[in-house]
Structure formats: structure tokens, C-alpha cells
């Protein structure tokens, strides 16, 4: 089960690299007043939400011998800053 979690983290790393390149293109080749900024912001917000909730749900699940706090405990911890 931990392998699945590690595979996910590796995928996440690749995703961040590809997204960074895509966003770099939008930033570099976009023109003032076009849609690139809107798309950049939307993309960052949407993917941020996906990653955040995915991690929150995953950490609330049981992964073999590793135990994480449940989602009900995890989310308040984040907003409290620890």
C-alpha cells in the first residue's frame, strides 16, 4: 500500500514539472489582455484543490502499518497551522 502512495507522489512530481512548463509557456508567450492569465489562475486553483483534497482523503485512509490522522482531524490541523 505504501508503494501506491509513493507512486502517487512520483506522479505528482511529474505533474508539477509538466504544469510548470505549461504555465511557463502561458506566461512567456501570452500577450497583455488575452486569456493566458485567466487560464493560469484557473489551472493553479483547480489543480491545487484537486491535490489538496486528494492528499486529505488519502491521509485519512489506512496505508498498512502507517497511520495518518482521519480527514476530520487532518483538515482542522491544517487550518490551525499544525
Amino acid at each position: 500500500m505504501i508503494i501506491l502512495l509513493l507512486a502517487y507522489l512520483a506522479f505528482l512530481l511529474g505533474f508539477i514539472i509538466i504544469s510548470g512548463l505549461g504555465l511557463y509557456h502561458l506566461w512567456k508567450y501570452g500577450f497583455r489582455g488575452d486569456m493566458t492569465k485567466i487560464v493560469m489562475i484557473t489551472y493553479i486553483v483547480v489543480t491545487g484543490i484537486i491535490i489538496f483534497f486528494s492528499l486529505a482523503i488519502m491521509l485519512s485512509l489506512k496505508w498498512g502499518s502507517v497511520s495518518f490522522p482521519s480527514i476530520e482531524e487532518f483538515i482542522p490541523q491544517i487550518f490551525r497551522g499544525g
Partner: protein
Amino acid sequence: MEDQDRLRKIFPNADVDEEVLIFTRKHWFMFLIIFIIIFAMLIVPFALLMISIRFYPQFFVGSIINFVVVFSSMYLLFISAAFLLGFVNLYFDIVILTNKRIVDINQNGLFNRTIDELDILHVEDVSAKVTGFFGTMLDFGCVEIQTAGTARNFIFTNIPHPREFTQKLTSEYKRLISSPSGNVALKTIDTAEGLGERAVGVFNHKDLRRPGGIANLGAEKSENLSPKSAPIEPESKPISENIPKTAPPDFQIPKIPENKNEPVLNIPETPETPEKPIEGELHEGTIVDLTVKKPDQNQNPDDK
């Protein structure tokens, strides 16, 4: 003004008087297709997942939940990245028509971006093609520009209002050709008399091209500049008539030696008279009269 800034960003050394006539990307229908595909890829698998959980809850127990969560997250992120790359691919395919050139920017993936430009005067033929139901209804299609020489043809697919694009290109081409500072090529012709007598006609560059297509647009000007109207002086005789038919009295026939290795003797040396250079530099459009004029016979040689 916004388009001017965009052109400056692509070509920092664009001419000051260069004006953007059309700045266009792919038609919005292409973006809509991308959105529909992405939406379908999002909706369909999750709808199937929800239905499965609703009707077969016994399968989603234990570690299966972990797999479902991880793969759902990966799938969502994959779709997001695909959307981003698709958007970059489509959004950065740009066509710019200025009053001097056509710029074609092609973005293929993240690491393949080409910017081609074409002088409007190098356009040989242009055609607009609108096909299909959506293309006809929403007025988008393909514009194909054939270029002179070995330059590759320009093909813009799925651009909005292709007919308008070709009309603007055509009118700009016409304007450039008929302008006095248009691209005028210099071409010399030898008359039938030959032997160095030349008259210079000024041709528009389109005269050098094959007939047909956009090249016929400025026909009215080419009539004025046709070789028939080249400034050939009717009084000037061909240079062949100026060559004396009889040899001069001091002319000696060269002695041909029997031994071929021996050099030919007694060949009268004639001083080489270099061609008088044309003053000033020649540019495109410079009209140079190279007609060989007959010397004025009425002129008294003593006047010299």
C-alpha cells in the same frame, strides 16, 4: 494598438509604420471541442464510478478505496494537464496579417514552436476554403497561401472568417503593388539586333511570375511598364550597323603558325576600354537607361 504591442513582442524590430490588419487565433469552436472532450473525460468515468458504488457497494471495501482515491486523483490531474497542453497548443497558433507581411506562429507541444513570416509581395496565390456544417455555419475554415520560389506554402487551418482574410490580403497586395515604392524589379532585355544594344524595361515583379492567381491583380500597372513601352530611342541604330563592313587599312591578318604550340604572332592589340560604370548605386526600382545612342552626326568634331 494592442495588436501593435503584440507584434512588437513577436518582432521587436518590426517597422514603425507596420500596421496589424488581422490578428487571429484558431476559431473558438476548436476550443469548444477541447472543452467538450475534457468535460466528457471528467464526467463519464466519475458517473460510472458513482453508479458502481451505488449498485455494487460490496466491491468498495478495504484497500480498494485506497486504489480508487489514488487513481481518481491521478486521473483528474492527468485531465487537467491534458487540458493545459491542449490549450497551449491551440491558443498559441497565431496568424498575423500586417500591411507588409504574414506571420504564422505554430505551437506544437511544449517544445516545438515555429514562427514563419512571409512578405506579402511573395504571395503567389491565395485560397480560402470553408468546409463542413459547422465551418459553414460559424464561418471558419482554411486559408492556403502559395508562395513564390522555394519558400514553403502557408496553410492556416480553422481560422475564423477565411474569406475576409483573403480579401484583406488581396487588397493589401494590390495596394503594395500599385504604390510607387512597391517592389519593382529591374529586368533588362536584349533587342533582336543584339550585339550589346540593350533597352531597359521596368517590370513589376509579378511580370516575372507565372500567369494566373493573385499575380494578375495589378495588370493595369504592368501595362504601363511593359517592355513595349521601354525607352528605346527610335533614331538610334543597332550597334551592328556601326561596325564597318570593310577592314581598316592598317589591319593585318594574324599569322597562323604551323606549330600549334607556337603563339600566334602579330595579333593587333586593342586597348581594353572598360565599361563606363553607372554612377550611383542601383536599387530595386531604379530606372537605368542603357540604350546605346548613336553619336550625333551633326555635331562638329572640332567642338570637342
